[in-house]
């Protein structure tokens, strides 16, 4: 099993593929994993544990970036498909929605943001998330419900996204 690549991938999903600090954040995540091994008790698989450590580190990094205003989301997620200046509509919609999700993660309470990211970005089920974060499935459901409600509101209010979706329908 190889975990370096998956941890890097998790970091990139959260902070954006093109983020200049992706390597540093992944590095910190690996160091965090090594530190956290002492508290690892085998409640979930090592892979899940590594993903969770990488995710938490990346979420923390995002909030830190916001605080120091080092980079905004436009820069964070500016990576296009191979730098082609006029990305097709579908790719643009995807990127816009990714930006909305990532921005929302900065605003939500940390447990809610973590549940949302584990579910939407990494594809974990409610049961898996419950095991990973050591809470009941009902708690995960509640957090996801809050997160989805907020996400729906953000997506519905995003004018650029609305324009793009209208363009797709026309």
């Amino acid at each position: 099993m190889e975990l370096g690549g998956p941890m890097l991938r998790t970091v990139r999903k959260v902070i954006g593929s093109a983020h200049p600090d992706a390597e540093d954040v992944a590095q910190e995540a690996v160091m965090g994993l090594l530190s956290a091994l002492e508290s690892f008790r085998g409640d979930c698989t090592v892979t899940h544990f590594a993903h969770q450590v990488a995710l938490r580190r990346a979420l923390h990094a995002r909030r830190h970036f916001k605080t120091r205003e080092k980079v905004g989301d436009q820069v964070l997620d500016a990576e296009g498909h191979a730098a082609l200046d006029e990305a097709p509509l579908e790719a643009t919609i995807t990127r816009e929605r990714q930006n909305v999700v990532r921005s929302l993660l900065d605003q939500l309470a940390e447990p809610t943001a973590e549940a949302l990211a584990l579910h939407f970005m990494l594809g974990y089920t409610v049961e898996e998330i419950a095991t990973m974060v050591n809470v009941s499935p009902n708690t995960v459901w509640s957090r996801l419900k809050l997160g989805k409600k907020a996400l729906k509101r953000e997506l519905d209010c995003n004018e650029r996204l609305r324009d793009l979706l209208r363009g797709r329908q026309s």
Partner: protein
Amino acid sequence: MKECRGDLLGRVRRGLASAQERTAFEAHLSSCDTCRMTLDVMGDFDAAGDAEPGDSELVARIAAKAARTRAVPPPTPLRPVHRHRRLAVAALVLAGTAAASGLGVVAFRFATRHESPTVENASQQPAPKRESPARTPAPVPAPSATPEPSPDAAVAVTPPPKVAPVAAAPTSASELYRAANDARRAGRTSDAIRGYKDLQRRFPDSSEAKASRVSLGGLLLRGGSASDALAQFNAYLDGGSGQLAAEALFGRGRALQALGRSAEETENLERLLRQYPNSAYATHAKRRLDELR
């Protein structure tokens, strides 16, 4: 907002749902905004963060830094199985690092249940290729007081681990590629073009040089050098199939459009749709084909 409890969405996405369940799910989607949104957004992140050229060396570099900064944690009097598992994991990280630094192989090999009696033993042995099937890690019921992972825990100051020393990396294809990409993202187009050309000249057979043809083609096209851009996209496509083939075809189409070579553009777009009917470029290609016809 309607809340759908159940794991059907997850089962469908993981390909575990039966045909009947899939049909039921599709019917459900037509009436459930939340599940539609969830499905869309999950799909948006499926490919996000995927591997890029140069990742192997990047991960090896991260592993080497981790090895330099932190040694294997000392044994602590926890339950033996936990101690052994933890030591095995940490030791195998470093073992993987040693392999990576010596051979250029990316290896963060972890074993959840590999019980190695000592750190020394574990670090001298190759990482296990796979976990024992009998011990495949099914999620264990969570104890009531599980410590949370602490990604931000302070890194203890420890002596350097006993791994092969890592030499300063020479200028490599991945470094050149990364520098050129950084320049492109920062808007330093001239530096980026120079970097990609340098990469192609110095490491013509590397995977990074191949990938750079698509990025360079895009920059040249944007700068008005459609012929040069076309040459880059053609070079990428002539090199056999690659992960960026759909992007290269899309770029070639735009270069041909800029050059007014409509017949070739049409042929190119048809090829794009034929080979990558589900790519992000399909909608654009169809629309452009309609304009051309």
